């Protein structure tokens, strides 16, 4: 079975976003970019499924600008077999990305699509669900455990108050949550080996998809700043403040 994994090129999780002062959005110039952490977990899961014999080929896809090829090379070094960059220099939305992934699934075939549950830049939490709808496939979101046997995936998902397990008949879309696994480190020999793995660049038009955004971002602002607080010297002073000043206990 072939697995398709989607990865997004995002501002590194350890960097606090800088906004342009004119309200036109994030200033990413020179900022450290990396693979969306949830997508890295999805990819790690695909590699483990391949090691376990449930998957025989992993295709990793990113929809983004040319520098996004960096995370595709990283994905190849981690263990993906080949990579596809659907080139888009403008920001993309989940609906557009889902359409591009659908088109690739139809072109190349796949029994399982693994994605991160959300991207840490736009925090949308939509692409997997949208892709499943467009393909008419079942879905499991926020996966904390995934087992594949034959054409059945058993997925334990994080829910609002615990865990929920569903059984899906493949093909299906699964989105990864934080505790599904811990992604492996990449070794130097694997980085070298990845240089020979295929990385295809393709225009969205070649997939017949329209990536133009449907949402107009009118402006981007800093959140309201909290007023500076005070340091207290003791538990007694803290309780005084909470009772007298804040009146919360």
């Amino acid at each position, binding site marked *: 079975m072939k697995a398709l994994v989607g990865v997004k090129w995002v501002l590194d999780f350890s960097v606090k976003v800088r906004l342009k002062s004119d309200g036109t959005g994030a200033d990413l110039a020179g900022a450290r970019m990396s693979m969306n952490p949830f997508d890295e977990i999805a990819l790690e899961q695909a590699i483990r499924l391949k090691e376990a014999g449930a998957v025989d080929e992993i295709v990793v896809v990113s929809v983004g600008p040319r520098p996004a090829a960096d995370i595709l090379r990283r994905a190849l070094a981690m263990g993906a077999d080949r990579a596809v960059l659907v080139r888009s220099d403008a920001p993309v939305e989940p609906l557009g990305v889902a359409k591009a992934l659908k088109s690739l699934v139809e072109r190349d075939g796949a029994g399982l699509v693994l994605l991160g549950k959300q991207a840490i830049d736009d*925090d949308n*939490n939509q692409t997997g*669900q949208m892709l499943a*709808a467009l393909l008419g496939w079942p879905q499991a979101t926020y996966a904390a455990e995934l087992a594949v046997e034959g054409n059945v995936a*058993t997925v334990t998902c994080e829910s609002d108050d615990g865990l929920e397990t*569903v059984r899906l008949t493949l093909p299906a879309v699964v989105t990864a949550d934080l505790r599904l696994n811990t992604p492996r480190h990449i070794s130097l020999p694997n980085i070298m080996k990845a240089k020979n793995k295929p990385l295809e660049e393709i225009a969205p038009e070649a997939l017949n998809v329209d990536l133009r955004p449907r949402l107009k971002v009118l402006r981007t602002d800093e959140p309201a700043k909290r007023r500076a607080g005070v340091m207290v010297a003791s538990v007694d002073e803290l309780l005084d403040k909470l009772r007298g000043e804040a009146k919360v206990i």
Partner: protein
Amino acid sequence: MSILVLADHAAGALQPSTARVVTAARQIGGDVVLLVAGQNCAAVAREASAIDGVARVLLADADALAHQLPEALAALIAELAPDYDAILGSSGLVAKRCLPRVAALLDVMQVSEIIAVVAPDTFRRPTYAGNAIETVQSTDSKRVLTVRTTAFAPAGAGASAPIETISPGPSGDTRSSFVGRSSTGSDRIELGSARRVVSGGRGLGSRESFDKLVYPLADKLQAAVGASRAAVDAGYVPSDCQVGQTGKVVAPELYLALGISGAIQHLAGMQDSKVIVAINKDPDAPIFSIADYGLAQDLFEAVPELIAKIG
């Protein structure tokens, strides 16, 4: 304008998030219709019919909608969609996994986790873990939205809207089936809607300390228990306690952070709390920069003293 709101319910009871989504819907303006979909949920529909500002309640009760799995639920909502200009749900699990599916079926780009309604087609929403607030205008003919419920007050409950039983939509998708649920469901106060939250981080050092310090303090304060990702990963508490960008978003009157450093991903889930208190032995911990009251002390000294001194 006509708005469909997906009601949140679990274990036969309406969840408080629904009344908050109704507030967002009323701010958009128009007839608000509530959809109660599931199995054996007539009692939920009766509860829902009391929410102020609801014009009608639609009840779709069927075995195929048991567990509110996204495949069947999205198919039902997509069938109802032609009658509505906007479809809203909460930021809870059922809406989060289902509404993007609905949006794609309708060829609409969803607006996730709105925190304000600027105009019927324009909304504010957090991105980058709450460090950027976007104002976005939808250019689609229909709107699909999820609502960050902490940002909207609940609508009152004094109405009695009519309840209409509707056909449950296309039959269930047999390619997806429910196997089981393990709820950590204790009798503790629910994190998402608690008025006070006590959260512990890696600074607790062990599950035993978490049990010995965080829970008793929460009990004294009648607070819900939360945690950082590090505390969850270390196994001190179950994952549904995680507060943050990828956990729960809370905005209680009082948020107490014990041994939590204040990573942006954690702040994303609690920075709208009314009063934030941080106890951390590192005076330079970033959590202090957003705390109203900070105490730079070893929590193993401070917390037992707090527990002893709170009435």
